[in-house]
């Protein structure tokens, strides 16, 4: 009697969640690299687009739908990248050129006002909705700016200013958002905790970052770690920070930025500086942008898409105009100021987190949808515009692909 063929292998669950995750990721990565090589799409935009395609497949295929989008992983990756932003952001610049702070406050404030005006007066949305959308969209993504800078090895005033301004705008947005949500929940009852909320956020996030920085320093001192070991230590510290920030009611974004700033300020020997982690950093960046793309929601209706388009246009205009206007006192040519504004167009996970947060509150669902639609547009278009701005300023040191 002939032996029975092991047909059972064909009945095995070939489309397990793990396999689908790997396949989607692999497919997205291949698609992104093809877009970079063949169509010369800027790498960061290509990764987000490919991630978005994977997200679309997931939404259409029953097998792929088995895989939950790991938002925790996306946010933890964002923490590691924000830590690197904190290490890179030239905060001391404000001391030697106070006009940098004026320009930063000016461009973020003007962007908020422009978006609020368009929504509240132009499109007739409620003041509360306009307020929330304005705050979410006034920021720019320092992670995208840093990633495009690193990808092009850009060096110069436009890329340096873009990193500083995008970081500061994110800090303003995080603080204001915390204040608004607390105020919204308190339903207009002014309480002491509401007034002190931004201070609590700043001090709490700083203290948590200081403790984590101490842990990281001890780890580096004890192990004398370099390269991959050090990188894993940094990732663990960022994940710990992320794990403790939310339960303590603190902004993980601020805490991660503070951690980077503190490490930079105290690491005189540069032993913890991020260039040591660049290889692993590149892997994290790839994963982050694909996951970001997969987390984006497509426009729910054409009406929302139209509102988002109006916000995108006014946001770009406000950022470019105010940066151009304040460029000369801040020691830059007007034209380069406009390029700084253009390079501040990206939005990413921070804005996505805010959009998801407000969408959970009754009465703010549509504000969340509008914000998510703007994030979708600027997560894809933003890196392209940032790259265009850097190239116009002749700052990339990498040749064209």
């Amino acid at each position: 009697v002939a032996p029975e063929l092991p047909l059972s292998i064909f009945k095995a669950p070939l489309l397990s969640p793990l396999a689908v995750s790997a396949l989607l990721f692999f497919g997205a990565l291949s698609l992104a690299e093809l877009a970079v090589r063949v169509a010369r799409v800027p790498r960061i935009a290509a990764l987000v687009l490919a991630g978005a395609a994977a997200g679309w497949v997931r939404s259409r295929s029953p097998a792929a739908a088995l895989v939950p989008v790991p938002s925790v992983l996306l946010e933890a990756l964002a923490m590691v990248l924000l830590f690197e932003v904190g290490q890179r952001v030239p905060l001391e610049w404000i001391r030697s050129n106070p006009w940098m702070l004026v320009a930063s406050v000016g461009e973020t404030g003007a962007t908020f006002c422009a978006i609020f005006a368009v929504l509240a007066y132009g499109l007739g949305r409620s003041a509360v909705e306009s307020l929330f959308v304005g705050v979410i969209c006034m920021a720019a993504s320092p992670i995208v700016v840093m990633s495009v800078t690193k990808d092009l090895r850009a060096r110069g005033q436009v890329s340096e200013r873009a990193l500083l301004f995008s970081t500061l705008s994110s800090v303003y947005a995080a603080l204001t958002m915390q204040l608004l949500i607390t105020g919204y929940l308190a339903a207009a009852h002014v309480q002491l905790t509401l007034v002190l909320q931004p201070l609590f956020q700043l001090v709490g996030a700083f203290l948590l970052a200081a403790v984590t920085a101490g842990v990281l320093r001890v780890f580096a001192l004890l192990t004398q770690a370099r390269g991959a070991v050090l990188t894993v230590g940094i990732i663990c510290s960022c994940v710990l920070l992320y794990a403790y920030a939310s339960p303590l009611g603190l902004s993980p974004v601020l805490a991660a930025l503070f951690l980077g700033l503190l490490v930079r300020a105290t690491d005189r020997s540069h032993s913890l500086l991020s260039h040591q982690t660049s290889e692993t950093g590149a892997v994290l960046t790839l994963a982050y942008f694909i996951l970001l793309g997969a987390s984006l929601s497509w426009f729910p209706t054409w009406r929302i898409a139209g509102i988002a388009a109006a916000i995108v246009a006014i946001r770009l205009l406000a950022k470019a105009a105010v940066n151009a206007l304040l460029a000369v006192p801040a020691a830059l040519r007007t034209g380069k100021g406009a390029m700084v504004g253009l390079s501040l167009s990206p939005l990413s996970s921070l804005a996505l987190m805010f959009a998801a947060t407000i969408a959970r509150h009754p009465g703010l669902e549509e504000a969340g949808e509008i914000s998510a639609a703007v994030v979708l547009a600027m997560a894809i278009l933003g890196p392209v515009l940032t790259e265009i701005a850097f190239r116009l300023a002749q700052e990339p040191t990498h040749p064209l692909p």
Partner: protein
Amino acid sequence: MNDLLCFRASRPFTLGVELELQLVDRRDGDLTHGATDLLRIARRRHPQLDIKLEITESMIEIATEVRFDYEGILGDLRVLRDVVCEAAERLNVGVCGGGTHPFQSWTERHIADGPRMRRISDLYGYLAKQFTVFGQHVHVGCPDGDAAIALAHGLSRYVPHFIALAASSPFLQGEDTAFDCARMNTISSFPLSGRMPSVRDWAEFNSYFDKMRSTGIVDSMKDFYWDIRPKPEYGTVEVRVFDTPLSVERAAALAVYVQCLARLLAASPRPDLTQDTELVYRFNRFQACRFGLRGELVDPITRERRPLHQDVRETIATIRRQLRGVPSEPLQSIEHCLDSGNDAAWLRARFAQSRNLGVVVNAQTSLFARSRAH
């Protein structure tokens, strides 16, 4: 005779100094692009100062007025340094001395705009980008072309002194080169570098220049990258072998040292231009680049070998003995360099402490801004 090579007479032994400076990122110490932005701020506030673009966006050049004494040169250099550092601070850019950047990648450099820069880039290809090295040029005034030729030949005997005292380029492309002055190796790649040909007077030099130009090898005097060359439009001899020192005080002291030697040579018989002179010139130059003040010199006449630092000390003693009115400060500064080591030694010591070239560049930037004696 060609109009371009009319030698414009100048007051003998007047001095002018040019310094090529590095523009670096304050975060990681790598070279950054900022020359055009920095120049715009500096020129708007101080239009009278001589601050120029150089071949790439990562470097600028500052130049003093024509001066006769140490105080004048040092005063000009301090003003220029302060103006450049102030403008750089507003842009969050660091400024520092040093003959090479320790770890920059030459492939990342951008050639600055301008017809001459483009021509150099077209002609020399990658060499133009590798030319991101930083030197100090010292001009000494001469009454006529013949005196300039004589001075250029006379000073060539001291080229090893100049190289060793100013050496500040031990690191290149992230490595310790084992040379104190690696910058000169980069310049040696250019076809018209090294020693000026053995012409005897200005007429002979003009004839040489005409031949070179009629064959299309050069366009102007700027195409000669010699260690020492006459500069007829300024009426000077230009010494080009110095690495940019880490402080303007050292730069001023070196300029005065050249001036003293020019005065000594003016009172001495004309140098002998034999093949042996050329032979030892290259050997001595190599010794100074490779070993700095620990190198050895061969005398072309006596054929003796002696330590370079000893030769410098004896030269300083001769200056003190034979010249009047020489200020003590610059000569003491040079003796201090002989005792405690040149800038290359200082850079290596900083690297030994930190094992990080980014930290070394930060130290260079602080030193240039503070300019404390070291």
